[in-house]
């Protein structure tokens, strides 16, 4: 892309970001944010970060957008009251000044970064072969810095435990989210019948290519989660009760397999999260395959919120 295109992209990004901050209606702001998120994927691509672009599109724009839109519609009633709490002019001016100062400092730092920037790319390239995977990012995520990835899966789980712990006591063990309204002939139901099979294939494909090309479990898991969400929203399928054993098993299977493979590494490769010579790629794929459903279930349930209905409710 040429500089002109970059400039146009940046201008559009800034305009949407500005709109997100100043919009009066929360809904308008969220809409602005979702389109901003989609545009941002272009920025990642422009910066040669295709894996990140996929993640951003799936999670940053997609799931976060869905989350915020859902919350906006639920919280619409509170908007008027909240506007009254808006801080006075002096506060806003002060806020603008300090925010500008921080932004200026960051901008200065960006300009002052060393050129050429330090990079671990050569080291990654050097050691890529021993991991067996072709995508350097997957190598970083699953081998060099596998600890971070394992912790990330655990972070999601902690988030979910946190959300569940907010449930009201009487609904504990019940189903999350509001009872779905079934409209068998609606457009949603139609989509929900058509898309999931395709989505399933796409999700697994993204996971599969992730070893060598952009893609991976997070992106794939998000696609699967989106398909399940579609089913839930259309009413064709009801959310499972949080007390069900299979839900819990599905949630922890991925991280558990990750830990077990890591422990296996202690015995066969001499280090926790190490892979023995030649078996690196299969083991990485085992972990990714185990993580995919866990991530899909976790992401879906994160979006659904705490249990809000008893298990027996329709």
């Amino acid at each position, binding site marked *: 892309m040429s500089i002109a295109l970059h400039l146009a992209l940046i201008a559009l990004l800034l305009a949407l970001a500005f709109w997100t901050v100043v919009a009066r209606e929360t809904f308008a702001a969220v809409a602005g944010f979702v389109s901003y998120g989609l545009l941002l994927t272009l920025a990642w691509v422009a910066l040669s970060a295709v894996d990140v672009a996929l993640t951003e599109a799936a999670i940053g724009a997609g799931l976060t957008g869905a989350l915020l839109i859902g919350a906006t519609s639920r919280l619409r009633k509170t908007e008027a009251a909240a506007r009254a709490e808006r801080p006075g002019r002096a506060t806003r001016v002060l806020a603008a000044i300090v925010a500008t100062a921080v932004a200026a400092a960051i901008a200065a730092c960006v300009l002052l970064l060393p050129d050429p920037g330090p990079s671990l790319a050569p080291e990654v390239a050097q050691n890529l072969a021993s991991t067996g995977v072709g995508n350097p990012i997957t190598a970083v995520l699953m081998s060099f810095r596998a*600890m971070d990835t394992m912790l990330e899966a655990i972070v999601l789980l902690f988030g979910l435990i*946190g959300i569940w712990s907010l449930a009201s006591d009487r609904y*504990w063990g019940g189903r999350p989210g509001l009872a779905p309204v079934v409209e068998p002939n609606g457009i949603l139901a139609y989509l929900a019948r058509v898309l999931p099979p395709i989505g399933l294939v796409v999700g697994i494909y993204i996971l599969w290519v992730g070893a060598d090309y952009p893609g991976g479990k997070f992106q794939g898991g998000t696609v699967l989660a989106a398909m399940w969400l579609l089913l839930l929203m259309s009413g064709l399928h009801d959310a499972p009760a949080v007390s069900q054993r299979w839900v819990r098993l599905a949630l922890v299977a991925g991280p558990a397999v990750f830990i077990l493979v890591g422990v296996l590494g202690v015995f066969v490769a001499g280090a926790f999260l190490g892979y023995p010579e030649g078996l690196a790629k299969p083991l990485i794929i085992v972990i990714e395959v185990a993580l995919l459903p866990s991530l899909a279930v976790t992401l879906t349930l994160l979006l659904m919120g705490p249990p809000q209905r008893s298990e027996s409710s329709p």
Partner: protein
Amino acid sequence: MSPAAPVNLTTPGGLLLVLAVLLPFAGVLLGLVLGGRHAQRVAWLTILLGIGVVLAITRASLGSGASLVYLLGGWAPPLGVALRADGLAVCMMLVVAVVVGAVGVYANGDFGTPAGQRETRAALAFWLLLLAVWGSLNLVFVSGDIFTLYVALELLTFAGVPLVALDGRAETLQAALRYLVYALLGSMFYLLGTFLLYGAYGTLDIALLAERVGAQPVTWMAAALMTAGLLAKTALFPLHLWLPPAHAGAPAAASALLSALVIKGAWFLVVRLWVDVFPGIVSLPAAQLLAALGASAIIVGNIVALRQARLKLLIAYSTVAQIGYLFLMFPLVQALNATQQGNAAAVTGGLLQAISHATAKAAMFMAAGLIYSTLGHDRVADLRGAGRALPMTITAFALAGASLIGLPPSGGFLAKWLLLSAAIATAQWWWVLVMLVGGLLTSAYVFMVVVRAMAPAAPGWSPKKQVPGYQQAAVLGLALCSFLLGLAALLPFDVAQIGRAVVPLVGSP
């Protein structure tokens, strides 16, 4: 700082560090699957094993006298991630294990699953979050990589926030939300600093960064952003907006965890950064600024604590003040570095302050919880009868208070002695004044609470609820740990200085 052991080799016993982190996390996974009262059993098993692991780590590091190191996946930094445990980390892990154990004992009374129910929300959540907090903290202490530390901080936040709202009242939900959003802002600052450091130096490893950082604007900005973000998570005045309602609103066992341990995670990182990563670029004015914030925390926090009508809020504000003490060490470290005397006195003083506060504050919050169950309220003005009904608990409160005040032989005293010595040795008498005034203010509210609790009950009064003896014992045990910590000086070894340049302390115990 030149750690005695080679930085980039796994040392014997290094695997224990992985265990210290993973064991609690594995406990969370298992507890979630089994659910119900099994979660509690799993938690207990994990606590016992975990304490064993921490003891083994202590033994290993005392045995070798050097930092324990483990290279995850066998990859050496900068490509891989290393876990390292120096003396500071080992001490913090020990105290966390002790507090978690005591809180666990206490929580048996409050978070058991009642008979006839398969699973209750609060019990399941509490036991899982207890383990989550523990694992996250251990990760904070041993991680040698600033991005893994970011993830660890987020884990800690995600484990801490639900603890605030565990009893589901509206105001605790709001407190939890404030905590979460503010902490996230702090994390973003930290993350930005991390990225800037990587952009400038091409590594995330603490030991490598310490060698590579130079005095240049990007480093300054990164250090400033990371420090500010961590201060927000530690709730150092004036960034403490979330702390009082969150710590006062949570159930007693959760408050104990939050106030004693969770905030120490971010504090520990500030110490790591300032003492180990940026010793060359941290300037004395910056350290003075940090301590000045600490000093204002001590004064404002203590005075506001004195004026609280409710015991738990009083204790929460006392935490605001005590956090201030934790930051007084920085200008002393800085000035000691400049005088070539070695910063051991100030660092050990700060560490002891953290440890004694952790044990004392956990004991205080749990004591407040017992007082609440016994009296049915926690109004400071009307605590009479509590001393008669809960003699052990009030004793524990008084002992914990003595530790906060800094009366000997408590850990607080030893910490004060070291910090005061360092302040005088570096001619920074104003911190002496702050510490002494803070101690007096602390003694005022401890005295107030203890005296009111000792007053005889109204005739015909009877406790609302009989609290189990083991809860009282857990509180007293923890308070004794804090009160007798100073006797650690009588021990023949100095754990805190393992893996650090050891300099004999002149004129200090």
